């Protein structure tokens, strides 16, 4: 067996050794924490993904031991491999911080900021990105882009205005299903995800587009507006599925299964793809063998409803600002404003524990 060559790479002054062929992003993720650049389009399990959103740009201050020249431009860490002796600056580079703030502004430019009515709110990577790396307000004073509405069938809801064109869903359709039916139409700032002719996307594995979508552009119709994620309790569960691994996360309230997703790691990437049957059709607790609560360790809003114990809830005592080290997340949704799930007349903070549908129903009349 030939030995795997190890390369030494230093990222933000931390040195590690990684096998040759590792990308800067993966090396940085091994170090973890803030050293890992945000990645909105790259997805480890999707071949060819990455390079597009430009949020993961880093500065290479030393190319390698052999050729120590710095790279002239910032590079996409997801698509650039480490070299032996390479030195990379991520959060230690003012250039990177500045460029990234610019990228965040670009990504939000035409984003509707309709978080209050978006099912992705609470687990949206763009929300996280914008308050970690963005600036407080936008300088864009023009009308935002709109698109004609497209229907993707009974399972999947498309909100094109929220799409950041990461291409992940296209790779899913290409690599996971045997017949790609949706793609990117038009070009430039008019590009859109569509099927052209209205089609019901129902290929066995197509539901995975929902899990890979970093924003609320592709959401689960069977879950739509039923609840907010932070009121739900994630539980790992499995079933004997003839199509996929059957290993999922159930999002429950009480005994009710509201939503089924794949299990995601700390970078928001799925561990195993799951099939449509598991995702959309198995909404009974009795369909599943529950393994236990799932720890969501993303540092986002969703973790606000973090379930530490097996039963009950820890209601966070800190303020948002404190949790986020003084940063005031301006672009975060105000859940008290318009929402079909959260009518404005309910003061959520007054509800003891996680909200129940009863809390809303009782107010409806």
């Amino acid at each position, binding site marked *: 067996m030939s030995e795997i060559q190890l390369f030494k790479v230093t990222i933000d002054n931390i040195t590690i050794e990684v096998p040759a062929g590792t990308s800067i992003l993966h090396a940085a993720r091994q170090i973890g924490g803030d050293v890992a650049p945000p990645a909105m389009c790259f997805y480890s399990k999707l071949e060819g993904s990455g390079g*597009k959103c430009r949020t993961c740009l880093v500065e290479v201050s030393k190319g390698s031991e052999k050729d120590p020249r710095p790279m002239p431009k910032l590079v996409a860490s997801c698509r650039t491999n480490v070299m032996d002796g390479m030195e990379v600056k991520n959060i230690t580079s003012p250039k990177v911080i500045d*460029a990234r703030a610019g*990228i965040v502004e*670009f*990504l939000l*430019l035409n984003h509707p900021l309709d978080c209050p009515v978006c099912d992705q709110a609470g687990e949206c990577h763009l929300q996280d990105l914008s308050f970690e790396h963005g600036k407080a307000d936008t*300088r864009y004073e023009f009308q935002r882009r709109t698109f004609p509405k497209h229907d993707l069938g009974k399972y999947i809801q498309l909100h094109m205005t929220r799409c950041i064109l990461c291409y992940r869903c296209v790779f899913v359709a290409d690599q996971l299903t045997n017949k790609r039916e949706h793609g990117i139409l038009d070009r430039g700032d*008019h590009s859109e995800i569509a099927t052209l002719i209205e089609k019901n996307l129902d290929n066995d594995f197509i539901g995975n587009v929902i899990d890979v979508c970093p924003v609320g552009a592709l959401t689960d119709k069977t879950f739509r507006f039923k609840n907010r994620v932070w009121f739900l309790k994630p539980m790992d569960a499995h079933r004997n599925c003839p199509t996929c691994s059957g290993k999922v996360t159930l999002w429950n309230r009480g005994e009710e299964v509201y939503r089924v997703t794949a299990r995601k790691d700390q970078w928001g990437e799925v561990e195993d793809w799951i099939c449509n049957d598991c995702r959309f059709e198995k909404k009974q607790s009795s369909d599943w063998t529950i393994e236990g609560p799932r720890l969501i360790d993303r540092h986002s809003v969703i973790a606000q409803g973090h379930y530490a114990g097996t039963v009950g809830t820890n209601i966070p005592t800190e303020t948002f600002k404190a949790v986020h080290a003084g940063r005031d997340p301006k672009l975060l949704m105000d859940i008290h404003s318009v929402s079909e799930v959260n009518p404005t007349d309910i003061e959520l903070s007054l509800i003891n524990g996680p909200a129940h549908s009863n809390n809303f129903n009782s107010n409806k009349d």
Partner: protein
Amino acid sequence: MGRKLLLEKAHVPGIRSYEVYRREGGYASVEKALKTMSPEAIVEEVKKSGLRGRGGAGFPAGLKWSFIAKPEGVPRHLVCNADESEPGTFKDRYLMEFIPHLLIEGLIVSSYALGSHATYIYIRGEYAWITDILEQAINEAKANGFLGKNILGTGFDCEIYVHRGAGAYICGEETALIESLEGKRGNPRIKPPFPAIKGAWGRPTVVNNVETLASVVPIINLGGEEYATIGVGKSTGTKLISACGNINKPGVYEIDMTISVEEFLYSDEYCGGIPNGKKLKACIPGGSSVPILPANLLLKTAKGETRYMNYESLSDGGFASGSMMGSGGFIVLDEDQCIVRNTYSLARFYRHESCGQCSPCREGTGWMEKLLYRLEKGEGKSSDIDLLWDIQSKIEGNTICPLGDAAAWPVAAAIRHFRDEFEWHVTHAAEAQTSNFGLAHYADPIHVPTV
């Protein structure tokens, strides 16, 4: 009168046909190369010639050729970039339309040097009638044994195919071009891998501009060393310049890069000066993406020296006070032209042509266009100018392909050199709708400190 290597015979009657072209000495380089030279020797000759890519970046052609990977059993391809879409540029069209066999001749020699048995000409879709001209030239060359199997009995096989694009500037970028050749959307690829390693259909590929490949003909005929004696410094050989805008004689000129910008612009042999007795205000000397220069920095460098029509001199002073040779599209603006309007028009072009893959270019180009439109219509604010500057700086260098830079540079240069004209559009909004900022001080002599 400079030496002409490419267009010398372009106006011989009937030169478009094989017979006349051959009678005028055409295809001699194919005979010389295939019969007496090895592929490596040709690459050497091109290296010696100092030929730099004529598509815009000016990368040494011989060096590029030497990078092509040669894995066992994998075919290689040469692709000729005839996408010509950079505003101000129309030189390749001229060459292909008038003397198509020169390109075919250069392609055969280059294909032999690179080991390409199937060579493609990627031509922009709008040049539909030129596609016919090229296909006819290919058929004639083939009928006369210069293409097909066993060319001139040397055992070298080669076919040339014309692949017509369908309206997309971005397909001039070499990896987008390759995607388009493969029947896909023209989304530039993320590099590495570079085309020389993995290009069309995953095979090693070299992409070169029309003019670059046509220049291989005189290089083989004259020898690389002699070719290198023409021109100056690293600007060897001759260069086609397409001149347009406010000049008396728009057209395509072959220059031997030793003439001054002033001579090129004012002499009757070339542009013939500016019509209607108007004065020069500004010029974009190398295609719309290169920095625009005010009159006083065009004819003389910031050091007060004469500026010449070559790679080094045009870029003298960097982006602060210089520009670039680019693709050789020479766009002249007279004193009546409005810089804000011109910049807006170019910004609209780049927004329209962005492929939309990466966020800075997709979103940033549209934002710049909207701001420039507002300024041009007299509805802008003075903070818009700083905002434009900031946006272009956030795009530049942060995108997948250089279209982002190409969109950022014109805006940056216009603000750098013509900021007071932008401000005037804000402070004199109503007036700007009916009159013009005019020449102002843009043609004033530059102060050259003597100490």
